[in-house]
């Protein structure tokens, strides 16, 4: 990944609605160059999707988010991949990470109620043969997500005119 593409990515991550023309101006580059870089990164799945960061608590949504630590037995030849795939294909599963340390997979799942999350863990996840154990934690409040502080932003306290 060259420096230019990295800078384009940083600017998109800051605000994905920015067009190639604005990014080109900010970087002092040609618009075509930015357009080409974005296209290549989309093709290579470096840029996977353009999605907003949403503070769901503001929407008064009653979603429940659980973080589940899962211990599994890896498969010969495929390691953790097959089992991870079986898990991440469930639509209610939002993230799946392979972890080092005390457990193997970390899964984030979303449900409408506690019961729904509990049902997923007991009936879907725990029943998979390779799953040895699960430990479920519920998220009570999100303070920061994807590098963005969700509440209490640092407001601009500057005077409107200063020397």
């Amino acid at each position, binding site marked *: 990944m060259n420096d230019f593409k990295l800078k384009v990515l940083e600017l998109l991550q800051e605000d994905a609605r920015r067009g190639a023309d604005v990014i080109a*101006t900010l970087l002092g580059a040609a618009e075509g160059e930015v357009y080409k870089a974005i296209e290549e990164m989309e093709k290579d799945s470096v840029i996977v999707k353009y999605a907003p960061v949403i503070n769901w608590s503001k929407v008064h949504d009653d979603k429940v988010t659980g973080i589940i630590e899962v211990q599994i037995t890896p498969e010969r030849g495929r390691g953790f991949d097959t089992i991870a795939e079986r898990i991440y294909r469930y639509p209610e599963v939002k993230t799946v990470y392979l972890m080092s340390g005390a457990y193997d997979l970390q899964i984030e799942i979303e449900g409408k109620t506690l019961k729904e999350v509990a049902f997923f863990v007991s009936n879907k996840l725990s029943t998979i043969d390779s799953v040895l154990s699960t430990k479920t934690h519920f998220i009570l409040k999100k303070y920061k997500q994807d590098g963005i502080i969700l509440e209490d932003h640092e407001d601009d306290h500057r005077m*409107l005119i200063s*020397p």
Partner: protein
Amino acid sequence: MLKTNRSMTEYLSPLVKDIPPSGIRKFFDLVSGRKDIISLGVGEPDFVTPWHVREACVYSLEKGKTTYTQNAGLPELREVISAYLYKQFALKYEPSNELLITVGGSEAIDLALRALIQPGDEILIPEPCYVSYSPISSIVGGKTVGIETYAKDDFKLTAESLAEQITPQSKVLILCYPSNPTGGIMTYEDWMPIVNLVEEHDLIVISDEIYAELTYGQKHLSFASMPGMKDRTIVVSGFSKAFAMTGWRLGYACGHQDLIAAMLKIHQYTIMCAPVMAQQAGIEALTNGLEEKDRMVDSYNQRRRLVVKGFREIGLDCHEPKGAFYAFPSIQSTGLTSEQFAEKLLEEFKVAAVPGNVFGLGGEGFIRCSYATSVSELNEALERIEKFVRKYQ
């Protein structure tokens, strides 16, 4: 009750009474309390002081570090500043006697002038420039002599215009590059003829280098690093602009030990020392904050491109600022004066900018626009300025 027939203003020193109020004052008042304005009038970073710096200050408070420091500042802070100046700008100052920690760069300029100026001495100031140099010079009894700089020269000081203003009474030259308000910077080739004049006329230079870290495309070249200039230059700088620490009021002055000793005398009788908590934060900023500083400079650079391109597309001539975080576009094509432009833009389109005339000679016909604000606000401000210009052109 005061028993006197005189009005209170008659008690005032003429040195203070005769100073005109700052031209910026009027604009402070115009925008005061308003929430609906996009401001390009702000002379400070839009970043909050990096968290690790704030946290270091909190930690030092928890440890009870709340005392006076040495008058010249914490020895550790002077050490890190000395190392930093050497690394960044090849300036070598002895922390023990060539460096003084002050309450912002402003105090350092005041101290330097008070240490140097006797009534009648002339102080040469390239303009447009930061609004304080001339009033402070007058307060100490000096006579200020403005030297006009021009957009066609990218607002650089030229030897010709400097030479025209030098008289036998000339004693001090105040420099501010990168420049507030124009964003102009000076190169080796630009400095050399100035160096010759300074030497020939035996001038002392106060070089305000508060924006030294904020240059785009080329590194800042300190006047003190030019041949033979170290001993006759007082470098003034601080943490406000590069480390987003305006409210901490932390600055410093470096120079010949005799000059610094004289400034220290005034400082110890008037200020005593800079706040210890700000000094603790300064150590953290210089020790672990350079990467964060680079990130901020990178961001200013992006916005600089956006704003300059924007003004040019609107049809306002704008020289390319290569330092600080201000664009200084010409508004002459509108037929309005700087003040009219700034006032009408504020009233009709709710964008605040500072009229160029408040910065002295050569500033009329321009406005100062700070691009230390978010990209979305800059875009909105540019759109509004475009509508405004179309209306009046």
